[in-house]
Every structure is written in C-alpha cells, then in structure tokens.
C-alpha cells in the first residue's frame, strides 16, 4: 500500500550549495534537503528527534548527517539513527524546472 503523496515546490535548486543542507517548509512538515558533494539530493525531517536540533545545519557526507547539537548520526537514505535515536522521516526529492520538489506523505 502506498500512501497518498503531496508534492511541494520548495525553492530554487541553485540556492542549495554543494555539500550543504538547507531547511524548508513543505506543507506542515519541516524538511532538511542536502546536496551531496558527489551529486544527488537527500531530504529528511529537519528536526532532530533527540532534542530538536537543526538537522540542516549538520555536517553531512555521502551517507550520514550529524546533528550539530549532540552529534547524533542519521543515515540520509533511510533516516535511521546510528546513535540509538528515533528515525528521521525520509522524503523523495527531485529537481523540476530549476526548483526543488519534495513529496510529503498525506497525514494518516
């Protein structure tokens, strides 16, 4: 069963620098989008489940992002924590006509 998805056009793709993350509002969700240094985009929830840290400000590599507040580690592809926290949500993200587009599952 696939959940109903809503697409949000969240901003110009060229304002997201290589190797960094930025936070966006997509409907009621806060989404941290990262542009990987070797290409590709990843989108996860922007709020660390541990203590509300800003995930978009975290250091990232091809696989993980590290929350800047307490260094909790999350996998960008799955959202799973490698440091024993609850998972981040993962969002499909793509570029369409120069804009970042994230898909957010409808609330269940």
């Amino acid at each position: 069963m696939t959940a109903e998805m809503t697409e949000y056009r969240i901003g110009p793709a060229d304002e997201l620098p290589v190797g960094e993350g930025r936070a966006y509002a997509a409907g009621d969700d806060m989404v941290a989008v990262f542009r990987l240094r070797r290409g590709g985009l990843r989108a996860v929830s922007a709020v660390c489940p541990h203590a509300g840290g800003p995930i978009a400000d975290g250091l990232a590599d091809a696989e993980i992002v590290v929350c800047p507040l307490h260094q909790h580690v999350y996998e960008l592809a799955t959202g799973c924590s490698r440091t024993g926290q609850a998972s981040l949500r993962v969002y499909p993200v793509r570029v369409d006509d120069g804009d970042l587009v994230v898909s957010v599952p409808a609330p269940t």
Partner: protein
Amino acid sequence: MTSRPEREDDEFVVFSEPGHGVYKSVIIRDDRLIGATLLGDVGRVGFLMQAFDRGLPLPEERVRLLFDLGGPPVEVSAAELDDGAQVCNCNGVSKSTLVSAVHDGIKTVTGVMDATRAGKGCGSCKSLVAQIVEWAADGAAEEDPSATWYVPGVPMGKPELMAAIHARQLKSVSAVFDALAGGREDAKSKMGLVSLLRMMWGDEYVDERGARFINDPQMKGGCTTPAQLRRIADVADKYAVPLVKLTGGQRIDLLGVRKEDLPQVWADLDMPSGYAYGKSFRTVKTCVGSDYCRFGVGDSTTLGIAIETRFQGLESPGKMKLAVSGCPRNCAEAYVKDLGVVAIDGGRWEIYIGGAAGAHVRKGDLLATVDTPDEVVRLTGRFLQYYRENANWLERTYAFVPRIGIERIRAIILDDRDGIAAALDARMQASVDGYRDPWLEGGEPATPGQFRPALPLIPLPLVPVREP
C-alpha cells in the same frame, strides 16, 4: 593538607608525596566513602566518584582506594557498579546500556561510545566507560585502530597526516578526503580537518562551508566602554534578543539571535567576533591589575589585552582559554586556565599551562617565570603553537601537558632542546598575520542561503525568555 575527618572514628587514609606534587586521601565512615581528595594523580577518580555516588562496598585493603595495584580493583569497580548506575552524566547513559551494547556485539570502546553516546559530552567518564566495556566483553574487547587516528575518516596519526597534507599541498577538506581517504568523505572528520587545515594554511585554506551562530562581541581582556554597551543594548532591543548574559570569560553574550538576523546584528554591532564558538583561542580573562587594585603587582589588564589582540581567533585542537592575574590572589583564575599568567612581586610574571576548571579541575604547571610582558607573549605564542601542532583533536591542554610532561615541554619551549623554537615562533607569526575576522564576510554569505533559518517553524536556539 591539614584537613581531618569530622569524627573520631572516621577512617582516614592518606598518601602524600610533596616532592612530586601528589596527595591523595579518602575518608570512610561505616564502610562507605564519604570524601576524597586527589591531587597530581587522579587515576582513581572514576572509581572513587562512583563509590561515593552509589555507596559501593569498598575493598578491605584500603590502599586500593588510592592506587590501582593491578588485578581486582578495576574489575571490581566495573563489576560492582549497579546496573542502573548512570555512568555518563552528560548524555544519561547507564551501565546496563553500555553492557547491552557490548552483548549486542560491539566490541570496541569507541563503537560502544558511538552507539550509546556515553563519553561524548564532556568526556570525563571515558575511562570508566572503557573499564565497563572491557569488563562486559570479558576479555574479548577489541582495539579500534581509529583510536590513534587524528580524525576517524582518515587512517593516519597527526604527524603523518600533517606531513601528507604539506607534501601534497592539500588545502581543503575534500582535497584531504580525495588524496588520503580514497575519496570517501566522512562527516565526523570534517570539524577536525577544518581546524587542522586552518592552523596549517591560514588564509590559504580553502573554505567550503561556513556556519556561525552565537553572537558574542569581542571585549579584549573583558574590558568594555559606555559607547560599546550602548550599542549592544540598542542591538539587543532592535532584534528582541531573548537573553543577554555575562559569561564566565568576561564577555556579553547575545543568546537566541535568529540565524537570519545574524549578518545584520553583526553589521549593527560593528564589533569583531569574540569567538564564543569553535575550537580556537577564546578569551583572556583579566583582573583590574595594578592600576585600580591595591594588591596588584603587575598590569594584568594591559597584558591580557595584548595577548588577546595577538592570538585572537586562532584555530586549535581544543579550546584555548587564558587569563592574566595581577597578583597571586588570582582573581582572574589564571591557575586553572589552558595558559594563565600571574604577576608576582618584583615585576616578574609566572606562566602556568595545562590548567582546567571545567569537567576536569587541574591547577596548571609552572612553565616559566619571566621578567617582561614581551617575554610572556613570546613564550605564550611558542607554547600555543606547540600545542596546536601536537595535540590530538579535542585534546585540551589539561590532558596534553601531562601526556607530554611538563619537564619535556620546558625543555622544548624554554631550552630549545629539539631546535624547533624558532620555527614554532615563525609559524605562530604566520598564523597571526593570516588572521581575519569571520564576520567581515557577514554581509555577504559565503554560500547562498547561509543565514537562512535551519528550522523555519521553530525559533532557535531554544533559550527561554527571562522577564526581569
């Protein structure tokens, strides 16, 4: 050391070796530890803290409280700790959580620390965590090769890594990953590499990312002016800063500034950054010195400002917090700083290194007593450069100085035993010359959207607003 136990029938066990600055004592009442003092050798602090907090049974041979005699005591302390005992007080990790991680198959100390976050805050519980992991693994604990690497993602110790960076002229973090880590970038290594590259290359370092948050205007030596205070008050009003706070380093923090306001806040303040963040030279705390204090025997304020002006903002493996006191009463707490300077009668100055008054408390070791403020500045620069080049990532001076040994540091810094003093001075001078204020770029973000809020719907940082 004349403290005596309160009651006649308290047990009082003392070891004193003044020649080496070692003193240890414990006080036991009803077979429970009720007090302990350790100076100079604090190897038993983990066990004693737990024995005190948890009321653990104590070894019959009381000397084992003061010394690790091999064999049982360490195992006893790890084994006898309650399962529920909180081992890491920063991240709230209990013994049972550590033991579960080991039983789930993690066999290295660093692996258990990563998985549980134990020891990842202030770090003072690391040795106890290691003991518990070794005990829980029952002899099967494994050495993590990365424990000796400078950062976890590049398989080299610090000297080897620095040599490779020099030889291959690597001036950005991704250049290091490409050349020395098989092209595999590692998020957990980035902060350590940025610090190292900045230290080695100064303004030749190629910055690929910038992030800075707290607003703490520079006030050298903790001195300010009415005009500066007015400007800070105006900015705090204008941007509705939730908390204005005097810090332990004698600065004024503006806490809770919204990220998107930061460039404008800095522009309005028109003051350099005071480096409240990052692993770098932080602040020089001073007392009022000889001009305004009847006890002052040296102008600590002027010297503190001179030191801060010279070394401001320099990157380092750990924070460098300094102080200058105008007399041995030590109002600026110079004895417990990474480098502390104390004026003594006769116009001379003592320089202490490796002090701390945080998660660890340690009185600094006397490096030298010198005749002039210029000499203080020169030796300060030489020691700080030696520390920057030789300390492990996040190794503060309170760990670094005892690891190298004060005698050896004196031989290198004062007697130039290794013939590197001139080179240390020259490299420090190059770093000083290459300094620029990071907030000069505040008006124009280094990358697009650098100062966009990272959490659009939640104000950050979450500092409560205090009503007067």
